[in-house]
């Protein structure tokens, strides 16, 4: 496992691991993401927030490669990645979870995570070794008691854990977490926050899309706010969340 960066938060002067420049996505005329530019730095946690329909998931889809941007450029560790299919991006270390949890429903927890170990950046070729490392990640995420359960029999919190374990088994450099806290209670949200922090300690750079703003506040080094597909704010979480434009984007205009 790669060593974590020497210092986590605060330092934003290092080389960006991910650069997005003027990323745009149009679906049959409608602009879903409009000329968004941002950078992510090694080992930071960036919160990506915005009301429903702001274009967050579309942006993540373009980074992971399941959607092609209509315009703009993406670079990962300095290399342009626009031409790469999703599986090659995974091999580079870009890894994502899905908003609607997408475990492989008919496979067991262990198998799900093993897929990550086999095909991710680690690309373990030997099944036994892949299984072993999968078990480690299952322990790490606290899912050991459900190792042999079918993924679609898991309840909410365990599903999230599985999603994390799968992602971690891929040994990602950049992890894109799409709404992993939806549907969890306060205690469970705390657990997930701890997990994400533990991951960062292992040197992973993390992009978090989240509606549970409490979590964003306590997790993120920086926050990026999308509204109607455009970037409306970026920076320190506390400051950004006080920004009247952000408040209005969330709560709406106060009416008489």
């Amino acid at each position, binding site marked *: 496992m790669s060593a974590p960066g020497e210092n986590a938060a605060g330092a934003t002067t290092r080389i960006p691991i991910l650069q997005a420049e003027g990323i745009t996505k149009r679906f049959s005329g409608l602009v879903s993401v409009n000329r968004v530019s941002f950078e992510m730095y090694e080992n930071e946690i960036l919160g990506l927030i915005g009301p429903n329909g702001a274009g967050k998931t579309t942006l993540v889809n373009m980074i992971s*490669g399941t959607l092609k941007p209509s315009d703009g450029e993406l670079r990962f560790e300095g290399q342009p990645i626009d031409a790469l299919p999703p599986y090659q991006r995974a091999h580079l270390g870009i890894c994502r979870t899905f908003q609607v949890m997408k475990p492989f*429903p*008919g*496979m067991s927890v262990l198998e799900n995570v*093993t*897929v990550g170990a086999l095909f991710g950046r680690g690309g373990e*070729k030997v099944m036994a070794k892949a299984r072993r490392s999968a078990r480690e990640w299952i322990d790490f995420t606290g899912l050991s008691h459900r190792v042999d359960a079918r993924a679609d029999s898991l309840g909410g919190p365990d599903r999230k854990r599985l999603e994390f374990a799968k992602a971690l088994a891929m040994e990602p450099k950049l992890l894109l977490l799409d709404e992993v806290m939806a549907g969890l209670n306060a205690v469970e949200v705390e657990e997930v926050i701890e997990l994400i922090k533990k991951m960062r300690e292992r040197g992973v750079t993390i992009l978090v899309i989240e509606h549970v703003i409490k979590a964003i506040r306590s997790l993120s080094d920086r926050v990026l706010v999308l509204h109607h597909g455009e970037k409306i704010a970026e920076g320190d979480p506390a400051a950004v969340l006080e920004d009247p434009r952000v408040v209005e984007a969330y709560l709406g205009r106060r009416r008489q």
Partner: protein
Amino acid sequence: MRPLPLAIAAVVVVLLVFVPWLASDVMMQFAIDALLLAVLAQAWNILGGFTGYVSFGNSVFYGLGTYGAAIAMAQFHLPFWVGILLGIVLAVLCALLIGIPILRLRGPYFAIATLGLAAAMGAIVSNLPIAGSNIGLVLPLIRADTMFYELSLGLLVLCTLTVLWVSKSRFGMGLVAIREDEDAAGTMGINTTVFKIVALVLSALFTAVAGSIHAYWISFIDPASAFDPTLNVRMVIMAVFGGPGTVFGPLVGSFILSAIYEYLASSISTAAALLFGIVIVLAVIFMPRGLANMIGGVRARGPRYFLQNIRENRL
């Protein structure tokens, strides 16, 4: 697969090797036929069961295997093994050629396209003089049921071992991931295109060899029997009946269905097909996920398993 079932399987295979010295000739006929059908179901399983790509076009590979053997032996008087090789080459080439465009289609589109290919291929071959056009080809007659039996058994064992390997290997994990969610599989680092094509090629290969063996055994082939479209449906039914995506499901499924069909055909001849149709209808209603799933389900939930299946799938 734990060691005990594997040991049982090994013992069964060893016992099966000696069947020709015990069984009657009729049994042998039935056994060779059932073994070859099981190979077809098992080969279909590699693609259909593990990747979830439902092929209705495997009769194309079967037909090419059949004609590979027939053309080599009848037109060029080459030995049987050359025929098998020719069949394999034809089938694999065809799989590569059609796999690339067709495996881009998902779900029902893929199924439909393969169905179309199967129909077109029979018509193409029946217009080729080297394949004997419509008249068909006559292969040398040989009375060697023991050889055909052992060959078929060997092929089935090989095919099943391949499936066993697939079920335990990195490759197989990739295939199953594709079946469960192809997009997620892609983002998890699986080169889905290559995996699907390899699965198709493997499936084509075993199917073709089964075709070659059948051709030599039956000694006369024509396009109608080599590219029989109902064969596709039979493979699918057998694999699905037993449990697609499992190692032994397709085997058990095809043996049971072969036995039922044979029993019906020999005892209540005329209504056999009718009863067979009813069996299929009932199976789809009560055990839509195949025997393997049903056994587990009934063990866990008893007869409620069937009701639950209906509740899940009815409107």
